[in-house]
């Protein structure tokens, strides 16, 4: 027929149909080419992958990770098998770090605008530095140094030291932002255990674990470490551990528990007190501890918490016999462990609840014992000691944010308080009234959007750092973060280096206090800590040669010393507060609102990553949305079906979100995930779902000033609208199987297919 290829292409190009059918058959141009790079470092060989150890900064847990790097690009993140916190495993959240690195909406360099109504324009780093230093100099010359405010996420390692040196040297204020702050938890742990660091909860060796409101498998404190331990707790030992979850919501941890006690919100502490009462009354706990807790008065001092009293039963919704059984099982178990947090610490009486819960550990005397509460020693490098439980390293509480004095210059790094604080904190006004706001965010999030100047930070996979994991594994650990790939955007900076640069310019004593020499920066500080570890000649890496030691530490992702346990520090009086707590709520609605941190999106700081948006919620399997969990019976009563858009109203505001009909949530509770509802945070987060935090009213835990985010009452109403809720459940069609005649029953041994022939 003599049709040439060129003619043929022309011919098929004529019809529009051809274009559709054959789209995808051609080879993209770049695949026909191969690039000779200019340089090639020794460890960067075409087609060969390398795994580098570093630290994950996607979540506060900061797991040790190894990153697969092929030709200078990070491909895959996996857990570092050596790292004591996560021992080779990782969470859904750390996995997506590579998407943060290569996110299409990452800011590539400094941007600035003359007034907040203007558009941002690109400027050079030098111009950006001049702007920052000018503003700080103005404060300096006017003697208003205290009106400089540095906001970060809770920092650890050398970055924490630099931030505190910088702010105290300048005379400004440093605040650490934690969405749904855990100040109540930290303070309570400090009070009950007399420690200045978060302890490790030895779930792995525990035989009876009771968790009050702490969703420790999903989002609470150190979830990867907990999950790692939980697998062993279940099937790793001769005796399978028993897990009881006391939770006002059917959380992921409750779903995994052997027994779930759906207590009334806020009454977790009452239940714990009642357990203490039973244990002391029946003489099961440690006698000395019981005396210490009750001031020698015994169970009589706790009579109002008697498991059979009408007060306890009414407040908790759990009957006396059940409390007694749990108390007995707990106290009689070999390695009992009680943990509490989350919603238990987020009611008006949160501190009371947590004190009572953690006192259970004191009562059964599991402190510093296998399967109990293991204390953490101070880090081997004194400058990295960051007392987050009772001292300087403590994040700011809701109360602190509410009572903030108006700053003139605000510097914000790694925190998004506009999204994470309820509007009642008034933080938006504070920012609007500040003269100059500098953000170091890699993304244009809600807080960065208010900034005048954004100097985007490099990704953690591109930079140096160190970390003292919190909580530690019961011994000293220093994690080392090293750059595994070159900077993807050349205009990005290291935050530590920025503060060092400002300090030098302003003549602060940061260099001298941290032992930095001229011309050195954050990387040298990290190197300095490696050198200090080397001089100790102990722990996981030892070498007489510093370079070999350094190499060893970088290869393993850090240094640790399993011999370096902590002692129980002198405990002051552990007297229990035996007065009946005031469990109060804000709002007049019918339902308790129990928000919860999303399993994949955290507090919303990971909402910009498409893998995490598409990771189904473990219980509801909902993706790319915020949903309202409502009890299935209740929904039937109210004639609400899956996907009906509901208005949830609290005194602080109202939101609209689709209903998820949930058979597990108690009929008196409405629960909603936190993390969505970003108005600005890259293409994958924007306008997805609603921000549940905006429903939270002005109510705090009396004992600590923490936001009492579980103390809201809400009402719901139907809007009459309906959507097809996006979820994975039902993705695979389910169908009823008709009853069939059984042809043959195969015994399990028939796994070997040979037998079938």
């Amino acid at each position, binding site marked *: 027929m003599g049709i040439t*290829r060129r003619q043929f292409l022309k011919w098929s190009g004529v019809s529009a149909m051809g274009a559709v059918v*054959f789209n995808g058959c051609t080879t993209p141009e770049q695949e*026909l*080419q191969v690039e*000779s*790079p200019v340089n090639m470092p020794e460890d960067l060989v*075409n087609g060969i992958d390398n795994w580098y150890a570093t630290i994950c900064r996607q979540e506060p847990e900061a797991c040790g990770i190894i990153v697969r790097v092929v030709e200078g690009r990070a491909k895959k993140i996996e857990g570092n098998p050596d790292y004591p916190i996560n021992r080779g495993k990782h969470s859904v959240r750390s996995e997506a770090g590579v998407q943060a690195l290569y996110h299409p909406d990452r800011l590539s360099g400094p941007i600035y605008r003359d007034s907040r109504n203007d558009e941002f324009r690109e400027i050079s780093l030098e111009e950006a530095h001049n702007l920052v230093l000018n503003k700080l100099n103005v404060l300096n010359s006017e003697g208003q140094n205290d009106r400089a405010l540095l906001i970060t996420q809770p920092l650890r390692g050398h970055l924490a030291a630099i931030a505190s040196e910088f702010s105290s040297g300048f005379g400004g204020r440093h605040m650490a932002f934690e969405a749904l702050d855990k100040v109540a938890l930290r303070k309570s742990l400090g009070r009950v255990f007399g420690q200045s660091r978060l302890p490790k909860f030895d779930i792995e060796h525990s035989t009876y674990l009771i968790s009050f409101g702490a969703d420790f498998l999903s989002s609470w404190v150190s979830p990867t470490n907990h999950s790692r331990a939980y697998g062993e707790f279940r099937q790793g030992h001769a005796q399978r551990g028993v897990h009881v979850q006391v939770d006002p919501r059917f959380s992921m941890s409750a779903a995994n528990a052997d027994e779930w006690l759906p207590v009334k919100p806020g009454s977790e502490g009452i239940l714990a007190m009642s357990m203490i009462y039973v244990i002391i009354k029946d003489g099961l706990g440690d006698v000395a501890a019981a005396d210490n807790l009750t001031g020698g008065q015994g169970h009589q001092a706790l009579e109002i918490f008697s498991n059979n009293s009408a007060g306890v039963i009414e407040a908790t919704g759990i009957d006396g016999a059940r409390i007694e059984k749990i108390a007995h099982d707990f106290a009689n178990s070999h390695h009992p462990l009680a943990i509490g947090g989350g919603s238990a610490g987020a009611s008006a009486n949160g501190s009371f609840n947590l004190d009572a819960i953690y006192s259970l550990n004191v009562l059964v005397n599991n402190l510093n014992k296998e399967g109990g509460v293991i204390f953490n020693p101070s880090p081997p490098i004194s400058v990295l000691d960051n007392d987050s439980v009772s001292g300087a390293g403590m994040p700011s509480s809701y109360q602190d944010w509410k009572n903030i004095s108006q700053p003139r210059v605000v510097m914000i790094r790694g925190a998004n308080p506009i999204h994470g604080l309820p509007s009642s904190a008034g933080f938006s006004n504070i920012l609007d009234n500040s003269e100059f706001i500098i953000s170091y965010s890699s993304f244009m999030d809600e807080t960065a959007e208010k900034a005048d100047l954004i100097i985007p930070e490099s990704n953690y996979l591109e930079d140096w750092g160190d970390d003292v994991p919190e909580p530690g594994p019961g011994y000293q650990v220093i994690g080392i973060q090293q750059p595994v790939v070159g900077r993807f955007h050349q205009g990005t900076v290291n935050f530590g280096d920025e503060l060092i640069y400002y300090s030098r310019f302003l003549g602060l004593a940061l260099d001298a206090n941290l032992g930095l020499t001229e011309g050195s920066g954050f990387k040298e500080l990290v190197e300095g800590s490696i050198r200090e570890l080397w001089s100790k000649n102990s722990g996981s890496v030892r070498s007489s040669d510093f370079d070999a030691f350094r190499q060893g530490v970088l290869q393993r992702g850090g240094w640790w010393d399993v011999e370096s346990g902590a002692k129980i520090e002198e405990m002051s009086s552990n007297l229990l507060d035996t007065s009946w707590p005031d469990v109060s709520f804000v709002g007049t609605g019918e339902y308790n609102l129990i928000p919860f941190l999303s399993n994949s999106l955290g507090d919303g700081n990971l909402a910009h990553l498409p893998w995490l948006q598409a990771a189904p919620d473990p219980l509801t399997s909902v993706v790319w949305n915020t949903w309202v969990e409502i009890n299935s019976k209740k929904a039937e009563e109210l004639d609400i079906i899956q996907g009906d858009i509901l208005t949830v109203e609290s005194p602080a505001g109202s939101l609209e979100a689709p209903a998820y009909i949930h058979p597990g949530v108690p009929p008196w509770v409405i629960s909603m995930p936190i993390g969505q509802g970003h108005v600005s945070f890259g293409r994958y987060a924007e306008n997805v779902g609603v921000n549940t935090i905006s429903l939270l009213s002005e109510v705090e835990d009396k004992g600590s000033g923490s936001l009492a985010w579980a103390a809201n009452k809400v009402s719901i109403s139907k809007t009459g609208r309906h959507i097809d809720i996006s979820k994975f459940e039902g993705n695979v069609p389910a169908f009823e199987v008709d009853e069939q005649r059984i042809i043959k029953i195969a015994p399990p041994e028939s796994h070997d297919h040979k037998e079938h022939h």
Partner: protein
Amino acid sequence: MLKKLIILFTVLGGLAAGGLVTLLLVLFVARAWWSTPFEVGPFGGSPEQPIEYPHTIHAGSGVLLLSDGSPKLDGDGNELHGLGLDCTFCHRNVDKGESAGVPPVEQCIYCHKVINSDEDLPEVALLIKAWENKSPVVWERIHRLPDHVRFVHEAHIRYFTEPGNTMPSGEQAIVAANVCAVCHGDVGNMEEVKQVRSLKMGDCVDCHRDNGAPTDCTTCHY
């Protein structure tokens, strides 16, 4: 009557639809015939490269020829021979990983810093310019496998250099560089490198069969 009309139209419609489907199918197959599996080659394609790199001078050991076919002579009138560099001198990764790899510009400069760096050779000048500008050299591919084929150089070189295994030519390969010619031909003596084997699946499978290598689909396709 109406019924008959409906039937008639249904039949006609069916035929038209069937015809359209057949036509599209024919188009699809025809298109595939002409355009796959290689946009380049399979035989004879020697696209223009950004730098005319002569494999003959570097990797060949024969007499170098001028464009008119006469031997290239040095100042004393002696015939010039190729350097006879080992393939792995530049394609260093070939016995380590999946891809053979092209050398980085830096590696070319190791030698060309000294050799011919001051002479008026346009191609070397291009190379030095790339080095000075820190710009990568983008070569046109000559051998290319489709995305759904995984070919690992290392395993093939390992097999042929193992004692007891002979190459299709019947020879025993001693070093990695002996193996390259099995698929790539005598590149050292090609003025312009071109593909010499079809490298289509049949070609791969034949060789695998001859050498007792696995022919399971997932050997190469995953």
